């Protein structure tokens, strides 16, 4: 029993009090204490202790990666990657755990390279005093100054690339339909896995579906005469359908780029709705989606009026009423590829 304890102790005990193990233990200790402190809303104590834990963890890791043995192993093609590990921890601490936000994302990623470059260059500013062995500030040698400038600039460039990635994501959130035409020609971006069904990426499909819904609520079950009147006034009536369709969908910047039109293509009332993309196009031809709806009349035989047997008038056989009502049947939205150019 004693042997086991001794062994554990030997393993656990840092070789010196001033060592990276001490710092890591301190950080674990802080994490445990932070977990034990009250979870009440202000959480001031917890925040301070967990911050201390992070600082200990960063310093401990910093120390650890600069240990000669570790430094030798942490090399990627002759490049010592230790500073980037430390930089990542610093960024997670600074930008990742704020107010319990789950995704550190943007700020953390963008600031990671320059912070790592600063971590990388710090040893170049420090020299150990020949007498007291304590670290003192020193101006880096010209060769080191040049290296610091180049490393910093290269890392800033990587930051810009991260930022570019996030910009592209912003654009795709505001203008998702750009994906529908594919980025094969782009000199900037590439899709890792080009999607199989491009059409579904276009919000034109959503617009047409919304328009179909609006059209159905407008015409279905209405007397046929009214439907025909509506159809003959299509140019004046359709804008309301368009507005209703737009109102159904989330408001994003892209909505400005879609135009919805409709025209009657056959006397049996085939209504062809067209969602026209007015933004930039990948090809010379215009990009549009169509949906054809057949508006027909259905004969509905309504049950005769209730015969009023107890009325004094003789119960005449009331004529069966035949009413014509509008029905709307729509096909699926189709991509321009499957249709001839207008």
């Amino acid at each position, binding site marked *: 029993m004693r042997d086991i304890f001794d062994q554990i102790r030997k393993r656990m005990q840092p070789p010196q009090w001033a060592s990276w193990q001490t710092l890591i233990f301190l950080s674990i200790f802080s994490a445990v204490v932070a977990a034990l402190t009250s979870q009440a809303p202000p959480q001031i104590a917890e925040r301070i202790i967990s911050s201390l834990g992070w600082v200990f963890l960063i310093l401990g890791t910093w120390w650890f990666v600069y240990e000669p043995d570790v430094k030798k192993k942490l090399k990627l093609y002759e490049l010592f990657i230790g500073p980037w590990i430390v930089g990542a921890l610093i960024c997670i601490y600074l930008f990742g755990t704020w107010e319990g936000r789950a995704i550190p994302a943007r700020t953390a990623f963008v600031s990671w390279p320059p912070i790592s470059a600063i971590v990388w260059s710090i040893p170049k500013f420090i020299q150990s005093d020949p007498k007291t062995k304590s670290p003192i500030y020193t101006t880096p040698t*010209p060769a080191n*100054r*040049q290296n610091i*400038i*180049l490393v910093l*600039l*290269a890392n*800033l*460039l990587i930051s*810009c*690339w991260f*930022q*570019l*990635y996030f*910009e*592209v*994501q912003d*654009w*795709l*959130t505001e*203008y998702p339909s*750009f*994906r529908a*035409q594919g*980025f*094969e*020609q*782009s*000199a*900037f*971006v*590439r*899709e*890792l*896995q080009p999607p199989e069904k491009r059409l579904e990426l276009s919000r034109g499909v959503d617009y047409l579906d919304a328009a179909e819904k609006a059209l159905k609520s407008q015409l279905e079950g209405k007397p046929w005469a009214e439907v025909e009147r509506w159809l003959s006034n299509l140019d004046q009536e359709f804008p309301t359908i368009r507005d209703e369709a737009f109102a159904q969908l989330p408001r994003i*910047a892209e909505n*400005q*780029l879609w135009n919805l039109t409709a025209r009657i293509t056959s006397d049996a009332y085939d209504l062809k709705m067209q969602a026209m993309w007015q*933004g*930039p*196009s*990948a090809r010379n031809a215009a990009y549009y989606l169509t949906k054809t709806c057949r508006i027909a009349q259905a004969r509905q035989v309504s049950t005769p009026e209730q015969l009023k047997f107890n009325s004094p008038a003789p119960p005449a056989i009331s004529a069966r009423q035949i009413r014509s009502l509008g029905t709307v049947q729509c096909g699926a939205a189709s991509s321009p590829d499957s249709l001839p150019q207008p």
Partner: protein
Amino acid sequence: MFTDVLPLRAILFQLLFIVLAIAIESIVLQKYLGIGQKTSIQYAATANLASPVVGWLIFFTVESSLPPSWRVQLIGYIFYDRINSPALLIGLAFSIFIGTFLLKVQTINWLDQILGIRKPSTVEVQDPIKFRGRTAHRQTFSELPNRALAVLLANAASFSAITFLIAVRTILPPTNY
């Protein structure tokens, strides 16, 4: 929203262009300024890493303040490689050329100060008290390598090479790289 649309092509092209520009510009600078190989590579590397960083910063600032219709055109250019007015593109390319030239001259001057490299031009004119004959002065002046001119030539050479590569990419049929 995070998608798998990555700016990989931009990164690839930028890396290629930077390496190419450093190689070309260091040769040109070395030849025109009569400086050592190491110094010329230092100049070219620093200048060509600084200019894309500044360029991206300007891009991000301008992009966020563009009116929506312009922004859509810009996004269209980046996603589909198509632009409504090629004249605008040429104008932009020209101003980028001038901008990078000025930036590179400035970067090299700063680099001299930071690294403590003595400029051959300033060494000559630093001492105004010393009397110089007219001819002697003119001679030194004409012999002095003009740094701005050398940087302009280097910039022109690297831009030509990059333009050539872009032209080749435009002409060749698209391949999925």
